């Protein structure tokens, strides 16, 4: 064991080799590794495991409702924001468009999850709110000459107003009955809009460009900037809201209406409020969608869209903001990618062949419905908590890792 001190024992050739190895060169230098080590210690000292071991759990009641509870979460959040800043520059125009759609669907999914996952009220009519948001903003801008930010907010509030109205019968209706009532609402909205000449009728409307003051969003990248900022603000707002008084009251209604009422929660008020908040999110999402697609027509806001929104939150995880985002991302991505599955390298030709032989060739694009349906069945059977459940399991495994 004297070899370490005595350099002469190590063969000359090996010494040279070590020096050339970049990895070792980097970590041999104390000053190089120091910032990383410091960061890791700073993060580690605040991790739940460390604080559990040292019996140092809480220092402040504010920690409970903080956006980033631990330093690990803080670092990860900052990293996520950096990623969101950088990725548009790495992606092509088409991929940015996909990310934009994901962000919009995430807003809607969060809104729907507030209603379905948190408050426990079903809705099959969210395509209706989506349409109301889209048409309100476009009509206001085209016919009323209102600036974009105002139109966007107005879309949310008009939609929320309709949400409030739809929420009123929810007091008397539950489960399947509420589902049918909301279903009727969604279909009625589409029908009315498609026969309304002022709103372009069946032909739909062309949406103007988004603009904030002098800044006009021409390219996908500029749209990304606006859509992603709105999505980020609304996500943070939802996270905060669900942790405070209103959010808790909503969950209380879901878990036990009688007890919620006995705690002084006005069930009438909070149920309609849940509908209004949910509709606000969906309306804003619809408005953004109108600008991202540059054209809207009533036919696209159909029942299938409502079902897709519902599928997003079930796949992502009911009663979870993160789940809504994950579900929206997965389903949006799959929907777009599976539409062009015949262009995929190996799978495409095989599927095309099967389709030609046993079905019709035109049936191939429908493969997306089959695969998405399969994924939904799989998730509901194997992971009822959805993608959030998978994340939680992974997190638990990671925390316990060496054991």
């Amino acid at each position: 064991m004297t070899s370490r001190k005595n350099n002469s024992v190590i063969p000359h050739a090996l010494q040279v080799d070590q020096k050339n190895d970049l990895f070792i060169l980097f970590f041999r230098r104390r000053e190089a590794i120091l910032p990383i080590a410091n960061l890791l210690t700073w993060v580690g000292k605040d991790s739940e495991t460390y604080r559990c071991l040292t019996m140092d759990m809480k220092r402040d009641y504010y920690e409970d409702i903080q956006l980033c509870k631990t330093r690990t979460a803080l670092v990860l959040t900052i990293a996520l924001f950096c990623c969101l800043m950088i990725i548009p520059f790495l992606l092509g125009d088409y991929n940015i468009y996909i990310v934009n759609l994901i962000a919009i669907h995430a807003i809607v999914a969060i809104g729907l999850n507030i209603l379905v996952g948190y408050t426990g009220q079903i809705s099959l009519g969210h395509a209706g709110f989506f349409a109301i948001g889209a048409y309100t903003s476009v009509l206001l801008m085209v016919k009323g000459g209102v600036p974009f930010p105002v139109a966007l907010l107005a879309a949310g509030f008009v939609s929320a107003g309709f949400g409030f109205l739809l929420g009123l019968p929810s007091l008397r209706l539950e489960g399947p009955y509420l589902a049918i009532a909301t279903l009727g609402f969604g279909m009625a909205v589409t029908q009315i809009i498609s026969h309304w000449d002022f709103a372009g009728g069946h032909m739909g409307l062309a949406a103007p460009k988004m603009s904030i003051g002098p800044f006009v969003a021409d390219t996908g990248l500029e749209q990304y900037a606006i859509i992603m900022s709105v999505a980020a603000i609304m996500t943070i707002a939802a996270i905060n809201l669900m942790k405070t008084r209103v959010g808790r009251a909503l969950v209380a209604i879901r878990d036990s209406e009688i007890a919620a009422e006995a705690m002084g929660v006005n069930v009438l008020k909070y149920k309609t409020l849940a509908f209004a908040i949910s509709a606000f999110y969906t309306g804003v999402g619809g408005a953004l969608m109108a600008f991202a697609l540059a054209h809207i027509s009533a036919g696209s806001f159909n029942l299938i869209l409502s079902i897709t929104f519902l599928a997003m939150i079930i796949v992502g995880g009911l009663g979870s903001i993160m789940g809504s985002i994950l579900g929206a991302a997965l389903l949006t991505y799959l929907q777009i990618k599976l539409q062009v599955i015949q262009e995929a390298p190996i799978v495409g030709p095989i599927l095309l062949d099967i389709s030609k032989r046993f079905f019709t060739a035109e049936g191939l694009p429908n493969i997306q419905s089959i695969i998405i349906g399969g994924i939904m069945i799989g998730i509901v059977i194997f992971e009822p908590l959805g993608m959030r459940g998978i994340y939680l399991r992974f997190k638990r495994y990671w925390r316990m890792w060496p054991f």
Partner: protein
Amino acid sequence: MALLSIQNLWVSFGGLVALHGVSMDVEEGRIFSIIGPNGAGKTTIFNCISGIYKPTKGKVIFRDREITGKKSHYSAGMGIARTFQNIELFGHLTTIDNLLLGRHIHMKSGVFSGAFFFGKSFPAAREECHHREVVERIIEFLEIEAYRNSLVSSLPYGIRKLVELGRALAMEPTLLLLDEPTAGMNQEEKRDMMFWIRDIRDDFKVTIIMVEHDMNLVMDVSDEIMALNFGVKLVQGTPEQVRNDPQVLEAYLGRD
């Protein structure tokens, strides 16, 4: 004037009459028990006080204000808290969140202030911290610190009963309605509950109305007892009076 006064209360469900003109007065600072065999209408009285049922006839007056037929959340706002016979907790929330829901009537933050706070100094955050502190004191009082962050659906029965009691206490009520607080508990837990009920009355300055089947407990802690049978009031008085009343003996044990 009594804190709570029930005057000639009739409740009928279709043809079934659950309460036949029951009247009672509960003085402030008392522990008042309602006893009676199954189906006597004890929980029905509770449901009328807390606004779940609307009585067919009669009045419920609380702190000189009539609350007959008012919604549950209204009486909760007036300062009436209750627990339920078959625990009604919010299963998917933690113990802390359940107790915080008890603070709902004392909190003010709405949708906007709840959604946008980015630091301790925002009103919603300040309010939240304050109420978490209050809740922490109740957790300490009931000695359920260990279950602070567990989902209540995963807790054992006895603890869930305590959490429900804590949630009612978090409302800082004037009147506390306990519906069978010791149902399903073992002897030791019943003892503890008995001490807690006394402590709650003394420490929190609460008037308690209790429905309970365990006679030892009822006789021990109550200041006043009312006995019911088939929706009819049999007798009201001190534990001593009720224990020796021939009608009560008959209702419980039958006639010779």
